[in-house]
């Protein structure tokens, strides 16, 4: 079973390097068969906070952005992107960083440059330049809580552990179960993940019928009519929905699930998967085009 350390962090603090954590899990009986590190190589790229933006004296379409790097002195860069604002967290690449050239698509080392007469001390990066996607219309805006100065690698990267769970440990077939193991093995506490969401819209009372065929096997049940979002509903499905929205939304992008390129039905499937992955619970049945009978 593959476990994302980033997602695991929602349940427990990871206080050891991945290799050491893997060794402890293996020694405890759940063997780590492999460790994969995702994300590009973002040496010399940090999370920066924009403190000031000025017009470039010699170019209408360019601006001078000053960024705070946390410990070091502020840097000023020449930037052509239209979407930057003071206060935003953005990726700042130092001279010498290896990135993807936004125009050629090739890997290139960032050199010191004078752009229209002003020295640029580095570069604010788009997703394309970081190798995340082909998005090059603007700078990648990171979430507000991204810590200023953190190496981008540490913030955006993920480490995946591939666990060989033995048949006598079905509790480890879920994130919460693995988090429990990790908490015990590292002396940390398991915590409840954020389960906040807003309910909106009229009550669906009387519109959906729920029947529990076997209360012993299925102690919880949720019903949700999916017509509009934000959704009216409650409980486990909505939790899953909120988690899905948070995890799969692109950093800095405002996007409602209605607009999600995956579409309604696919989003429901993904939400089910999230619940299984997180809590180890099953499962839902698709009744028709826009209705789901969801049993959790």
């Amino acid at each position, binding site marked *: 079973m593959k476990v994302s350390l980033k997602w695991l962090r929602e349940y427990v603090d990871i206080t050891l390097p991945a290799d050491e954590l893997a060794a402890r899990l*293996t*020694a*405890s*009986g759940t063997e780590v068969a492999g460790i994969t590190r995702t994300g590009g190589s973002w040496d010399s790229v940090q999370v920066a906070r924009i403190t000031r933006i000025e017009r470039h004296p010699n170019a209408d379409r360019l601006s001078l952005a000053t960024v705070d790097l946390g410990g070091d002195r502020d840097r000023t860069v020449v930037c052509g992107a239209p979407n930057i604002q003071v206060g935003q967290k953005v990726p700042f690449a130092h001279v010498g960083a290896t990135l993807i050239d936004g125009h050629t698509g090739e890997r290139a080392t960032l050199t010191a440059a004078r752009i229209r007469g002003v020295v640029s001390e580095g570069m604010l990066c788009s997703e394309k330049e970081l190798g995340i996607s082909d998005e090059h219309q603007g700078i990648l805006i990171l979430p507000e809580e991204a810590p200023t100065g953190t190496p981008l690698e540490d913030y955006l990267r993920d480490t995946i552990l591939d666990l060989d769970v*033995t*048949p*006598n*440990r079905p509790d480890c077939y879920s994130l919460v179960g693995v988090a429990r193991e990790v908490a015990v093995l590292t002396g940390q506490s398991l915590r409840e993940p954020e389960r906040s969401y807003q309910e909106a819209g009229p009550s669906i009372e009387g519109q959906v019928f729920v029947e529990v065929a076997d209360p012993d096997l299925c102690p919880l049940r949720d019903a949700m009519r999916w017509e509009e979002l934000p959704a009216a509903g409650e409980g486990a499905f909505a939790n899953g929905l909120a988690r899905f929205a948070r995890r799969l939304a692109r950093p800095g992008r405002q996007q409602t699930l209605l607009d999600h390129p995956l579409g309604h039905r696919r989003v429901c499937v993904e939400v089910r998967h999230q619940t299984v992955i997180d809590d180890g619970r099953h499962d839902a049945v698709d009744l028709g085009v826009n209705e789901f009978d969801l049993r959790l």
Partner: protein
Amino acid sequence: MVQPGRLHPITIALREMADIFGRMDFGIAYGPELEDDWHNFTALNVPEDHPARDMQDTFWIKGQPGKVLRTHATSVTMRKLEEMAKTGATSMRMINPGKVFRNEATDMTHEAQFYQLDGFAIGPTGTVTLANLKGTFDRFYREYFGPDTKVRFRPSFFGFTEPSVEVDVWFEVPGKKGQWLETAGAGMFHPNVIRNAGLDPEKFQGFAFGGGLERLIMIKYGIPDVRLFHSGDIRFNYAFDEKPA
């Protein structure tokens, strides 16, 4: 001129291992390679619908339901326990090496047919413990690999043992860094296994173990590819002295 024959490296290694275990009073037992489902799985507390069955990919025989190419030599352990129940013996310790079969894709470290060094010890409750298991492996590895080897147990799961362990050996190649290598699975007999043999699990207790035989030879002599053992290449035989070191 007729060339004299040579023993296969597996035969040479097996004789050496049997000698080590023999001096610990272990006998040698053999059993059929074409086994029945009872001795290979069900009697060993691995029922048909249990996920533990998926831990070993099995060769079944067309037209012979209930028959299987044994996936481990522990099937022989079951046969010997059944025998013990019939003869009324109160203790037994055996190694039961032999060829086993698993439906695996072959590569440098995996074969579809290979040898296992399997074994067990059982006696009146309290006389054969997990500590004895550790001691047995400790002794065996120090004699087979050298006096600097160490043994370590890690928790694991097998249907026929509870508790179950993975057995690692600490091995150092001269000039290189030492490392822990996984060599065998083992554990204390699950009460269901003892009961299925016809013995009373309240009165008897013991341990069982099993691991790849070629793997031990590969570790000791630095052989890189398990497929060499069954390739039929006669030059492989000439690399080994007939007498144990």
